[in-house]
């Protein structure tokens, strides 16, 4: 496949940045999107141009490190896939592909396509944990948990924190991320203990970091590579409301 790539280049946090257009030839339709970018970088190095910086780690769709806004969609075309699991067969020979970083005030661009998603870590530090004393793990069946609850908690826990929800939301809202964390902990007995404090602290941190608010457009759940639904946002709203009603 021969492709035209329109890639966002930005030297550092403070630079203005602009799109550069690159031509790339003989890309296998079976290569992944990141492998295509690897080939682009090989080509750029040969030409004496600084390679394009982009985030990636596991390349098997579970770490949440890869990002990229590809042709106007978070993680590009394809349903419930991360950028690393996107393959070039989703594109056609001769296509022009526009590649942008996540755009959100809370996710500043560090370099080229790499953004600082440290804001998510700060939200987790505010309450996305359970406080337990260390020691031997309890027997798995010592605390009975309803099937529905364990399923819902597991669905929420699938969030890999990639930030596609923020990137695709017209308000740059982090509600789906916060909801999945609050939901997965609040549904389980171990997480219930701190549920009140958690909901308040995580929402407060989310607001403080400059994420927008949710207007229920549902764009986040469509683009979420892990298929996390708005039902978790409803649960977060419930948790937050009940947390504020308690003294």
């Amino acid at each position: 496949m021969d492709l035209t790539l329109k890639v966002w280049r930005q030297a550092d946090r403070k630079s203005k940045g602009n799109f550069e257009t690159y031509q790339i030839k003989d890309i296998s339709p079976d290569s992944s999107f990141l492998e295509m970018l690897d080939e682009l970088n090989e080509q750029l190095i040969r030409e004496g141009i600084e390679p394009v910086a982009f985030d990636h780690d596991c390349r098997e769709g579970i770490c949440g490190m890869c990002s990229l806004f590809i042709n106007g969609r978070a993680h590009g075309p394809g349903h419930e896939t991360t950028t690393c699991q996107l393959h070039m067969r989703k594109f056609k020979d001769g296509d022009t592909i526009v590649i942008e970083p996540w755009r959100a005030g809370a996710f500043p661009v560090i370099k080229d396509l790499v953004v600082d998603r440290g804001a998510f870590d700060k939200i987790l530090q505010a309450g996305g944990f359970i406080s337990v004393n260390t020691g031997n793990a309890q027997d798995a069946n010592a605390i009975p948990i309803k099937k529905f609850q364990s399923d819902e908690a597991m669905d929420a826990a699938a969030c890999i924190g990639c930030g596609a929800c923020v990137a695709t939301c017209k308000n740059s809202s982090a509600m789906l991320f916060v909801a999945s964390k609050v939901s997965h902990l609040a549904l389980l007995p171990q997480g219930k203990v701190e549920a009140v404090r958690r909901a308040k602290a995580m929402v407060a941190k989310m607001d403080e970091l400059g994420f927008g608010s949710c207007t229920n457009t549902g764009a986040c759940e469509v683009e979420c590579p892990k298929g996390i639904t708005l039902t978790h946002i409803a649960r977060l709203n419930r948790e937050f409301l009940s947390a504020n009603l308690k003294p």
Partner: protein
Amino acid sequence: MAYFLNSSIGKKFLVSLSGLFLISFLFVHLTANSMILFDSSGELFNRTAHFMATNPIIRVVEPILAIGFILHILYTVILTIQNWMARPIGYHKQQRAFSSTWSSRNMIWLGLVILAFLIIHIANFFWKVKFTGDPLLGKVDYDGVEMENTYHLVTTFFIQWWWIVAVYVIGAVALGFHLTHAFWAAFQTLGWSDNCWRKRLNALGLVISIIIAGGFAIIPLWVKIASMI
């Protein structure tokens, strides 16, 4: 409480509650207006308008309604500005239509169209009936009870000017689109939604939107068309 109202979810909570309250008002308003359709002498509508203007419960609810409008508008404007500020640099290319509905993305614009309509609407009728009076607003007498001929004021407006009819139809359609997203979203923000209720509430929201938009649009069209045949 102050913390709650300062949080994004707290503000949205107020928008949802005020929005649902405004929807309940729309049903009362539409019911009263529909009396225009059922009696071309105007007596039924005039009696309804008189009842609404004199009923003590309605008198008490009226200022609450005004507060509902103000809260809904104020908080949505604040939230929208905050949401715009959350993305200082936008995308070069974004396929928004792929992942969300047009109404859900344009709630603020639909809302502003409805606000513009509301100002025209209040100036047309409410203000005249309530405060300034109008030459078109004569007195009528039904069974010894004297009341204002609101029917005459309303129908004359629609019959005389096509553009007034157009403004009312546009207002109704904008309201309809606004409600297609608003109804379920209000319950979602209040936390009353899950995978199952979402479908039910969205379906109900669509029905409500069609009733409200269709109802409010038909009345001026009916009056205008009935005057021509």
